[in-house]
């Protein structure tokens, strides 16, 4: 080794000694990512294309990292890595990896219904939303994620009634999504590619039945990064939220869709409230803002990452709401009242926009949406299950989901802030949780 090479080896060894330590809840994080990865791969196929890593051959080399540091990472071998943590504000019992909250049926009996996973004719279906206390809107599928019929399902009797046949236009790249109800109408969208651009068609049909019609179309210039990320039906129009082109209004009376003024960068949270930034914009700005030198980067990290939807605006009144400064090092998502996130001390932490009313719960907060302004999903410690948590009361309930025999787990999600329905399959049944029945 020449001098240059020796200096390099020293510099590397020196830097290695200052490398970060493994987080105490690493196993939880890996679990969450593993399950999320499987779920997304199953749902969209997007991630599958990236799984290209080959296995190395069976060579046996003593890596220096191994030999030089025999005492590394000594941890109990019973898998309770999370329990070794010290510091942090979580009470010790919350760190215990083996304690599950009571089942959701016990915690909120009035809110939970179990229905068969298939219709009497043997067809599978997707619960989409609750039209009222006893009526579920469902779709059946012609093929994977391609809805062909829209039906109402009577939760009391199990009977169904067809609302509409759904047509997926030729050339559609995104099948019917985001079924939404309001003002006696059901709305959804499909998307097709026109040349290089993506066009989203917004469909509506009366709740009592009829033939779906396209209310209007929105051209989305960048098909790779564009997407419809929210839909709401108001008294006189359908509101359409896009990932990068603002929020649009499509009146029932027809006419050109128009973008609501000043909504660039904003997204639908819960109509009439819009929020910014979304997760994409936040992560992007965090990446571009990261200064190039390590020293400056370390300074930047002391700055908290902005919460998703840290800034809210009421599209009808113009009222604005801004989240109080958040603690550094955390990662947060806000609804209208609550902001929730994970902090380094192994728990879900939630507080009001103004910083008051802080609450801590065990688990890892799922970055879906905060449902009805108070409900969230959290992975339970050691990923033994998934909890529905009520930020308002601090109660949490085990949704009953467990790993399959291959270790995978489907995680129920709250995809919309304004939907009262949380639905997920469990043990051959379909679980229907009416969030609005939880008081």
């Amino acid at each position: 080794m020449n001098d240059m090479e020796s200096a390099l080896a020293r510099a590397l060894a020196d830097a290695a000694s200052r490398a970060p330590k493994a987080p105490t809840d690493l196993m939880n994080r890996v679990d969450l990512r593993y399950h999320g990865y499987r779920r997304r791969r199953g749902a969209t196929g997007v991630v599958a294309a990236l799984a290209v890593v080959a296995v190395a051959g069976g060579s046996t080399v003593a890596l220096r990292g191994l030999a030089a540091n025999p005492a590394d990472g000594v941890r109990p071998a019973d898998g309770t890595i999370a329990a070794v943590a010290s510091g942090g504000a979580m009470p010790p019992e919350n760190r215990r990896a083996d304690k599950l909250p009571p089942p959701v049926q016990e915690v909120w009996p009035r809110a939970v219904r179990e229905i068969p996973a298939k219709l009497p004719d043997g067809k599978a279906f997707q619960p989409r939303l609750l039209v009222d206390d006893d009526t579920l809107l469902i779709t059946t599928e012609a093929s994977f994620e391609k809805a062909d019929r829209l039906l109402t399902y009577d939760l009391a009797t199990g009977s169904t009634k067809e609302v509409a046949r759904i047509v997926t236009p030729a050339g559609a790249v995104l099948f019917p999504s985001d079924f939404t109800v309001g003002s006696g109408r059901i709305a959804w969208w499909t998307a097709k590619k026109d040349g290089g651009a993506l066009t989203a068609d917004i469909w509506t049909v009366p709740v009592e039945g009829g033939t779906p019609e396209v209310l209007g179309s929105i051209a989305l210039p960048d098909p790779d990064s564009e997407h419809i990320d929210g839909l709401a039906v108001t008294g006189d129009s359908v509101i359409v939220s896009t990932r990068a082109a603002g929020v649009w209004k499509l009146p029932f009376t027809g006419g050109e869709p128009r973008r609501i003024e000043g909504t660039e960068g904003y997204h639908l949270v819960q109509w009439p409230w819009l929020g910014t930034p979304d997760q994409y914009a936040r992560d992007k700005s965090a990446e571009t803002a990261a200064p190039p030198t390590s020293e400056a980067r370390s300074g930047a990290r002391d700055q908290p990452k902005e919460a998703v939807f840290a800034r809210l605006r009421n599209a009808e009144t113009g009222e604005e709401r801004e989240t109080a400064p958040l603690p550094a090092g955390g990662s947060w998502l806000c609804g209208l009242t609550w902001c929730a996130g994970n902090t380094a001390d192994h728990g879900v932490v939630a507080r009001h926009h103004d910083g008051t009313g802080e609450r801590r719960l065990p688990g890892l907060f799922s970055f879906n949406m905060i449902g009805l302004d108070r409900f969230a999903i959290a992975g339970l410690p050691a990923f033994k299950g998934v909890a529905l948590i009520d930020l308002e009361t601090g109660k949490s309930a085990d949704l009953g989901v467990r790993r399959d025999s291959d270790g995978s787990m489907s995680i129920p999600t709250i995809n919309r802030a304004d939907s009262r329905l949380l639905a997920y399959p469990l043990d051959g049944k379909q679980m229907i949780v009416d969030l609005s029945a939880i008081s």
Partner: protein
Amino acid sequence: MPGCPRLSCVEDDYERFVGERADALLRYGYLLTGNPHDAADLVQEGLVRLRGAWSRVRRKHDPERYVRTTMTRLHVNIWRLRRREQLSWDLPEEPVTDVHDDGSVWKVLETLPKKQRAVLVLRYYEDLSDAEIAEIMGISRGTVRSQASRALDKLRATELASLESTR
């Protein structure tokens, strides 16, 4: 392990591996990426992939090499493409210490292309032979050598320049 159901034994093994090797993997990720965030991300992704392949990799008795190979190739080839797909769980950030010295070698490493840097880390930190590096990175030995020599040239040039400027 007699008397323990097969699946949970496999999982225990996996968790033990993670518990024992996580810090070493993080050090490797840190040297590879130069920053603690990417290091943590890379280690987690490597462990996720390992988990999917655990029963297969375990039979070959070298899970650590599997993870390092995964991390190296992800980092060099396709890293950052994946980030957008990781949105549904936004994981907590750890308070970490970053490098504050102005070690010129470390700084120059930051300016190297990912592939060159990875070759240097494998050669001068992990002490691997060019053949082993070639295998991990999925490139030829000739490429390992040329990447290493280009990287060393750059280090040398920068070092000379800094000597000149302090003279």
